[in-house]
């Protein structure tokens, strides 16, 4: 009796999704197998099978460094991509990304606060957590992001017009940037350096114990996005049509912003502000899948985001280079040409019909 909204598996889009999934598997393995330290394939197998007793370094590198890094990249890519898609649909703006509401700026402010300001105070710890630990940084990032999210949701209740809400988000970003700049000005060069390095983004700073929080929260955000598939489609018609079809536009807007906010907050807290993935992946997906239907776009975008993040992570840690490039450098090099091509395409195509 039930027929899916999705076309049968062997359609164009179905094949695409399968090939994305397959590529993700391949890239995942590549990310485990390759890095600045070259480990022979036999060694990798040994580690995975648990029989690498002698080679403690290999086991540490693969299981405690590369594996969490690959998982983080995967989830961060999917989460940011779907957040970007939701923002682009809600605001009907192709240049929107998950950070457009200023949430990752809020996270940055929290981190700047603890890296550059708290250090000046006499405090050393708060409820047993050292203020200068990795955990404290993550907590402050979440605090900053959540505060900004509350602010945005508050404004969303008062302002019906989406364009105005967008501008408020951008203004919040400006204010937080200014505050961060003040902190930078009065900070020592070491703290500045630490903050700058955080700002370049990294998938490598998430420990296994932290993944216990990261994984469920991101999966929750992804799950909510699935539930929003239908409302997102309806929103494409415009708010009047959507209301006429029985959609509570305000509630929907609330949940979209909440889901995107949570995803952006947690990903920025653990990985730093990652640029471009959220903006570029929805466009790539729309171009490849040739559809506006979210029942195909949501899974498509998540898969594409995971894939692209794994590719960027791989490139950033190419074997042969002792160093790892910061993630934002790689994503920008990918993302910027895409943004440019979107703008060029928009001149020729009509996006609103």
């Amino acid at each position, binding site marked *: 009796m*039930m027929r899916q909204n999705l076309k049968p598996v062997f359609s164009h889009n179905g094949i695409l999704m399968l090939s994305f999934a397959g590529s993700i598997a391949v890239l995942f393995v590549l990310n485990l197998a390759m890095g600045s330290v070259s480990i022979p394939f036999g060694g990798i197998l040994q580690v995975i099978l648990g029989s690498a007793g002698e080679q403690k370094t290999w086991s540490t590198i693969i299981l405690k460094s590369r594996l969490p890094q690959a998982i983080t990249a995967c989830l961060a890519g999917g989460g940011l991509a779907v957040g970007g898609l939701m923002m682009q649909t809600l605001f009907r703006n192709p240049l929107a990304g998950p950070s457009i509401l200023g949430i990752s700026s809020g996270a940055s402010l929290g981190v700047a606060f603890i890296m550059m300001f708290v250090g000046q105070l006499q405090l050393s710890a708060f409820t047993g957590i050292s203020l200068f630990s990795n955990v404290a940084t993550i907590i402050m990032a979440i605090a900053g992001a959540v505060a900004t999210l509350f602010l945005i949701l508050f404004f969303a209740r008062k302002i019906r017009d989406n364009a105005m809400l967008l501008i408020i988000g951008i203004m919040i970003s400006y204010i937080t940037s200014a505050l961060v700049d003040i902190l930078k000005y009065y900070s020592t060069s070491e703290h500045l350096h630490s903050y700058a390095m955080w700002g370049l983004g990294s998938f490598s700073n998430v420990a296994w114990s932290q993944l216990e929080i990261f994984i469920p929260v991101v999966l929750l955000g992804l799950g909510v996005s699935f539930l929003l598939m*239908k409302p997102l489609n309806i929103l*494409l*018609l415009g708010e*009047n*049509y959507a209301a006429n*079809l029985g959609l509570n536009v305000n509630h929907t807007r609330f949940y979209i912003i909440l889901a995107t906010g949570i995803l952006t907050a947690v990903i920025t807290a653990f990985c730093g502000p990652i640029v471009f993935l959220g903006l570029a992946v929805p466009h790539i997906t*729309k171009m490849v899948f040739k559809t506006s239907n979210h029942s195909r776009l949501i899974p498509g975008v998540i898969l594409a985001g995971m894939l692209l993040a794994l590719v960027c992570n791989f490139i950033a840690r190419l074997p042969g280079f002792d160093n790892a490039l910061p993630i934002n450098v790689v994503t920008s090099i990918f993302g910027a040409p895409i943004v440019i091509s979107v703008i060029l395409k928009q001149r020729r195509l009509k*996006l609103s*019909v």
Partner: protein
Amino acid sequence: MENHLLHTKDLTIGYREKRKNPKILHGQLNLRLLPGEFTCLLGPNGSGKSTLIRTFAGFHKALGGKIFLDQQEVQQFREKDLAKLVSVVLTDKTHVGNMTVFELVSMGRHPYTGFFGNLTHDDLKIVHHAIDSVGMLGMKNRLVNELSDGERQKAMIAKALAQQTPIIILDEPTAYLDLPSRIEIMQLLHNLSSNMQKAILLSTHDLEQALRFADKIWLLGNENHVQSGTPEDLILAGEFKKFFERKGIRFDNLSGTFKITNPKAKKVRIIGQGLEYNWIVNALRRNGYTEGQDSEMSIEIRKNGSLNYILKKPTGEHIEIGSVENLIHQIKTLE
């Protein structure tokens, strides 16, 4: 007691501006929509057509009075239930360009489907039927941004049909269409309303098509004046004259169209009748003349083999002319 699907009681529509008194466009309206009737809302710009439509559709708050759907006040309906009673077709811009016609129309099933929008077998049948009703079954897999304007409107109408509401409200659906498309849509809507017993209300500028296809017309004047009735009753009661006449424009009850008037027009006598007579009068009127018996100038229509017009000038001269264009030209040179 007729079963009206929608009726209003002392409805006042208008809009509120911040810190000013609300601007009332029309007050004390008592209107009805009946199943199986195709109603057209006519009125000059600024008379509040859009406001009335949007108030009915629920996008706009009424300034006073009540609207009843099926005997229950509109305010008391939940969104989901309202969605099953009223569907709309608007001029709003949408972003569904990259969806297929099928996907677009199936969005009309939203009030009936679950969380993921999965369509049941019945849903699919309804969507198919809706697309068929507008005659677009062959294009169901085309992308919306590949359609022409008329086809796109039909797809939107199909979506409203798929929503299976007893009332469909349309806001200037034919505004940007060419004449054949306009006729096609109006005919379609009339057929849908009578075949499916729906109450269809639309606002339009297109007087001619409204007169032709509407079962009822609501005439919206500029100051608090709404008249409703069948087109014929309104014409015969002289309502159209009252509503639309302006200086130099006259509503002709016979033809159901507007004509240009000019009391100072020079008179020209026409000898002849039929089709040619009509169209020569048209040309004369356009150029500031009118036909009348007492005139020194006359035009005689001669149809012996070929068509000729004999122009007799006030000087007594007779000229034989082969086209209306030359005729008018000659008349004008006499000035």
